[in-house]
C-alpha cells in the first residue's frame, strides 16, 4: 500500500451533495481511499448509504461537489483527475472507465436489438472504420460474455435477466476498459444466475486484468468476489480492509452488526445477534459527530462531539471509530 506506483486510483476527499428542499443531502461525504491495479474493491452498505452515488462519481456519471478521483495514466506514472477533465477528455476517458448497472431490465434501451446495443459503444467512439471488423468484434464480445450468436437480433424484453446482464457486461467491455464499476450487478438476478454472472466477472478479470469496484448490499456476494472491502454508512467509509480481516476481526461496531446479521448454516454455533436500534439518521445536513453514534452501543461523549476520521488501525486495516482499539469481539 505504501508504494506510490501501486496505487491505480486515488480518491481524495470526494464529496457529493444534492440540494434538496430541506437542505443539502450529503450522499457521499468526504471519502478517501485507494484502489490497486487489478484488484476488486467491494463496497457494501445498506440502501441509501451512497454507494451507487460514489460509484457514479468515480466514473463521472455524476459531477462530484468537491474532491479528486485520480486515475493513473496508461503509459506513465502520472495521474488524471477524472472529476476535472474537460468534456472531450472525458469522452476519451470513457473508453477506460465503464459501469455495469444494477437493473438489467431498465438499463437497456427496449427498442434496440442485442446487436445494436453491443454495437453502440463501438459506433459512438468510432472504433472501427470497417463494418466487417465491427461485426467480428461484436461476435467476439458476445462469445466472451456467453451470449449465443442466434440472439443477436433479439430484443432485451425477450431475454431473461441473466442474458440481459450479459448484454450490459458486453457493452461495458466493448471499449477495452481498465476500470469497471459494478453497481450491484447481480442483485436483480436469481441465485443460480447470480453465481454464473459472478464467475463470468471473475474469469474476465483474470483474463483482462480489470480493476473492479463491486457495489453490493449482499455481504456474502462481496466476500466471494472482493480482495478488499469498504463498508459505507451514511455517505462515509467506516471500515476498509482485506476481505479476510473484515470477516475475521471487524473493528467498527457497524460492521460487527452487519456481519452478525449473516445467517449461518450451522446449528451448533450460537452467535450473538447485534440488533441495531432505531433508524438510519437523515443524510440531510448531518451534525458533526460520528454518524453511527445514535445507534451504537459503545457510543461515548466523544463520539457525539466530533466525527472520527478513517485511520489505519492495523496495517492495511482502516477504521473510523474512536473506540476501535478497545473493542474486541
Amino acid at each position, binding site marked *: 500500500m505504501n508504494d506510490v506506483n501501486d496505487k491505480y486510483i486515488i480518491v481524495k476527499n470526494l464529496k457529493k451533495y444534492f440540494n434538496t428542499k430541506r437542505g443539502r443531502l450529503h450522499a457521499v461525504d468526504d471519502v478517501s481511499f485507494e484502489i490497486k491495479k487489478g484488484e476488486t474493491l467491494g463496497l457494501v452498505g445498506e440502501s441509501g448509504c451512497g454507494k451507487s452515488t460514489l460509484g457514479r462519481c468515480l466514473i463521472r456519471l455524476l459531477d462530484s461537489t468537491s474532491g479528486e478521483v485520480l486515475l493513473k495514466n496508461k503509459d506513465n506514472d502520472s495521474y488524471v483527475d477524472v472529476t476535472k477533465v474537460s468534456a472531450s477528455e472525458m*469522452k476519451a476517458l470513457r*473508453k477506460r472507465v465503464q459501469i455495469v448497472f444494477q*437493473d438489467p431490465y431498465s438499463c437497456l*434501451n427496449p*427498442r434496440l436489438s442485442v446487436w445494436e446495443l453491443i454495437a453502440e459503444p463501438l459506433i*459512438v*467512439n468510432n472504433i472501427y472504420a470497417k463494418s466487417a471488423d465491427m461485426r467480428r468484434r461484436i461476435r467476439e464480445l458476445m462469445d466472451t460474455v456467453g451470449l449465443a450468436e442466434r440472439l443477436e437480433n433479439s430484443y432485451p424484453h425477450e431475454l431473461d435477466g441473466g442474458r440481459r446482464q450479459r448484454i450490459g457486461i458486453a457493452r461495458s467491455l466493448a*471499449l477495452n476498459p481498465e476500470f469497471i464499476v459494478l453497481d450491484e450487478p447481480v442483485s436483480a438476478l436469481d441465485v443460480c444466475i447470480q453465481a454464473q454472472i459472478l464467475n463470468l466477472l471473475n474469469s474476465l478479470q483474470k483474463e483482462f486484468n480489470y480493476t473492479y469496484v463491486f457495489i453490493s448490499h449482499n455481504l456474502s456476494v462481496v466476500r466471494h468476489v472482493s480482495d478488499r472491502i469498504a463498508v459505507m454508512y451514511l455517505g462515509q467509509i467506516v471500515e476498509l480492509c482485506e476481505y479476510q480481516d473484515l470477516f475475521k476481526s471487524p473493528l467498527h461496531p457497524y460492521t460487527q452488526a452487519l456481519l452478525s446479521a449473516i445467517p449461518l448454516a450451522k446449528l451448533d454455533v450460537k452467535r450473538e445477534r447485534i440488533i441495531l436500534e432505531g433508524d438510519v439518521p437523515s443524510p440531510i445536513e448531518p451534525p458533526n459527530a460520528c454518524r453511527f453514534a445514535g445507534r451504537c452501543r459503545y457510543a461515548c461523549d466523544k463520539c457525539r462531539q466530533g466525527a472520527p476520521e478513517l485511520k489505519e488501525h492495523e496495517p492495511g486495516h482502516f477504521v473510523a471509530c474512536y473506540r476501535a482499539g478497545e473493542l474486541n469481539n
Partner: protein
Amino acid sequence: MSENLENVTPELVKRKRRGAFAEVLFRLSKSPLAMFGLAIILLLIFCALFAEAISPYSPIKQDLMHMFETPSAEHWLGTDEFGRDILSRLIYGARVSLQVGFIAVGIALVVGGMLGAVSGYYSGWLDNSIMRVMDVLLSIPQTLLAIAIVAALGPSLMNLMIAVGISAVPTYARIVRGSVLSIRSMEFIEAARAVGSSDLRIILRHILPNSMAPIIVQSTLGVASAILNAAGLSFIGLGIQPPNPEWGAMLSGGRQYIRDFPHMTLYPGLAIMFTILALNFLGDGLRDALDPKLKR
C-alpha cells in the same frame, strides 16, 4: 425457417435480420386496420396526383343550368350552388387538403419536436425560457394565431401551411417535452452516456424513439385539425382563394344550404372524416409496429 417453428420456439431460432424500415413495414402489414388506413391514404394521394385524369368534370367550371343537383348518374355526388361537380371538386381538393394537412403537421412536428426535446432534455433555464414562450403562444387561440400569421405573410397556400403549422407548434413542444422528461430519467439513458454517446445521439436514438407513441397519436389527429384550420382560414378569405376547390372551403360553402341540400356538406365532410379515420388507423398501427415489445 417456417413461420410455425418461429412461433413455437422463439428462443431457439435466430431471428431474421431486416433493415429498420423493412422491419416496421413487415410488422405494419400484420395489422389489417393499419393496412386499411394505408390503402385509403394511398388512394387519396393517387387522386391528388392524377386529378386531371380521373375527375369527370372541371372543378371550377360553373354550370348554372344544373345548380343544387342531388347525386345522379351524371353527377355522382351532385352539384353545388354554381353547378360545379362535387366529385371533381373533392378529387382536386384532395391536393390542397392533403398538402396542408401533412406539411403543416410536418412543420409543427419538426419545430415543436426539437424545441420540446431540447427543453425536456436540458431542463433548467433553457427549458424554462422555451416553455414560457410556448405558453405565450398557447394563450392565443390557435385559429387567431394562424389568422395573424397569414395576415402578416399574405394569403397563399405556402403561407397558409406555415401559419397552421406554427400555430400548432406549442402543442407538440409540450407533448414531446413531457415524454422526454419521463424517458430521460430511465437508466438506459445513463448507460448510453456511460459509453460516451453525445447528447444529440441520446436524444435522437434513445429518447425520441421511446417517446414516439403520444407523438404519433397527436400527429395523426393533428393532420385532421390542420385541414379544418386551413378550411377556416379559407372561409374568411385568408387561405385558398375561390373558386379553387378545398374540402374545408366546400364544407363551409355548403353550410348555408345544409337544410335543403345536405349533400353539399355531407361529401366533403365524409372525405375529411375518412382521411382522419385512415390516418388514425395508420397511426395506431405505426405506433405498435415501432414498438418491439408488441411484436408477436
